[in-house]
């Protein structure tokens, strides 16, 4: 005990050193941010042949065009909205499928990527690096390769979004698991339970609310991702959106955007409803 005793002087000294380090890091960090922002605007101006600001002006003209087109369409505009629902449904189903499959695979794999539960550290590294690789390529990259190999359809988009979901969810889930309370885990270990039994009974119940909440958020992201993949030939509502954009049919563009915003808003309401249900159960 006594050899580990810390005097107040040495504690103060250490605190001072730490505070100084923290101040230096903060200054460096703020400096780096300012540098990146300033040089970013510079680069943008260079590539836009001088006028970053003029681009910003054009940016505000386009929405005005969209609304005037939609206004000209009159009541018929709501018919246009309805006509895009089957395409939206295709995109939405693709997003749901890839979220469910991706999150499930991530949930099964993620205990292997946690330092506190994985059978060994080699497995942790392998699984984590796999998640990293899956996450580091944008869906678009996977989708472009798969579209080239498999032809134009929604299937390459589903595979691409699923792979990315596994990477992103795997990281989030495994970090959630690293923060769980280990007492129930000890409790079941002491009973003589197998590894996967411990995961199922002591780990999954603890992270379930977080898993659901992350998955619902991911569903929103995946709806957007599947839409964007439509641009490059994966079908669904994205394909219609890119066509309408190119033909400058403002009313159709606005109808599709309306549907997308409505979908995301509905999802947001749904996810907060589900979350409250779960939290309510916990506190009851």
């Amino acid at each position, binding site marked *: 005990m006594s050899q580990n005793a810390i005097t107040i002087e040495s504690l103060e000294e250490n605190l001072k050193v730490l505070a100084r380090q923290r101040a230096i890091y903060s200054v460096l960090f703020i400096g780096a941010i300012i540098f990146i922002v300033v040089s970013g605007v510079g680069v943008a101006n260079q590539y836009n042949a001088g006028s970053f600001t003029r681009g910003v002006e054009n940016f505000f003209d386009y929405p005005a065009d969209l609304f005037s087109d939609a206004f000209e369409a009159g009541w018929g505009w709501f018919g246009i909205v309805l006509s895009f629902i089957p395409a939206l449904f295709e995109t939405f189903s693709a997003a749901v499928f890839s979220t469910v499959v991706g999150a499930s695979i991530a949930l099964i794999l993620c205990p292997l990527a946690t330092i506190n539960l994985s059978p060994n550290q080699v497995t942790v590294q392998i699984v984590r690096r796999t998640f990293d690789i899956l996450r580091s390529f944008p869906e678009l990259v996977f989708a472009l390769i798969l579209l080239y190999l498999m032809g134009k359809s929604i299937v390459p988009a589903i595979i691409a979004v699923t792979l990315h979901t596994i990477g992103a969810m795997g990281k989030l889930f495994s970090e959630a698991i690293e923060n769980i309370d280990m007492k*129930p885990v*000890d*409790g079941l270990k002491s*009973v*003589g*339970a197998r590894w996967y039994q411990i995961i199922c*009974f002591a780990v999954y*119940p603890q992270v379930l609310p977080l898993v659901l909440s992350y998955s619902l958020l991911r569903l929103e992201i995946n709806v957007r991702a599947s839409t964007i993949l439509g641009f490059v030939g994966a079908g669904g509502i994205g394909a219609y959106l890119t066509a309408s954009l190119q033909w400058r049919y403002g009313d159709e563009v606005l109808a599709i955007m309306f549907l997308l915003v409505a979908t995301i808003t509905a999802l947001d309401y749904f996810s907060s409803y589900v979350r409250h249900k779960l939290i309510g159960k916990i506190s009851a």
Partner: protein
Amino acid sequence: MKLFCHFADLSLCLESEIMHLQVSKLKKEFGSTVAINSVSFESTKNEFIGIIGRSGAGKSTLLRVLNRLTTETEGKVFAGSINILELKGSEKRQWQSQCAMIFQQFNLVPRLDVITNVILGRLFYQSTLRSTLRFFTKEERSDALDLMNRFGVAPTALQRAETLSGGQQQRVAICRAMMQNPKIILADEPIASLDPLNARLVMEALQSINSSEKIKVICNLHTLDTARTYCDRIIGMRSGEIVFDGKPSELSDAKAREIYGVEADEAFEASVTSTSLNTSHIGIAS
């Protein structure tokens, strides 16, 4: 002395009526800190052993090593003729299934209901597939219910464990331990976070298990009067070593002061964690 022991041998040695437990020269280091140092003791008959000592004396580490939750640095622990520290894989888990553990913080799964928590005591006997799909048999449910009736927590069977009071949770933990059909129960400060009434219920439950089922109980305790009331034998630990081993009557106040050191006054005083229910103490507690 056998280096390898087969499943059948282990079952055989665990089947004998009363477990012959022999701990010899057990040592555990965490980095440069020695948590327990050359701990040896033997228990041949059915008894209620209380391990006392101040916090940090190595009591918890000792129990965790016995259950194989923590790996030892060196030493041997014999159950019958088998060194249980050498067991691996399913044999190790079989030992754990026979050596139930009760924790200070109960270590139940908070979000699962009470009856499931109790049935989890049988996980060793259930295949991974059956248990993960939660196919528990009617027999398992009825065994769990019998235990919950015995320890007075049956009305809470379908509640989530986290909704129970500390005393109820600890009794659920005892049900889970009994569900294992253990040969020995290791209790790590089972009453340290309970009020006096619940502390007494829990200690009486352990005592009844010890006397009617003939299950050996090794119980870490912080306060002296609890150890004197419930234990047949007291082991005193100080700085990772055993400094006293004998009957409660042999433990003099001077010896107890040596065990507890600076915490002696706290341990002597029947504090909030104590099981004694004199009116004066209730007055202090409330």
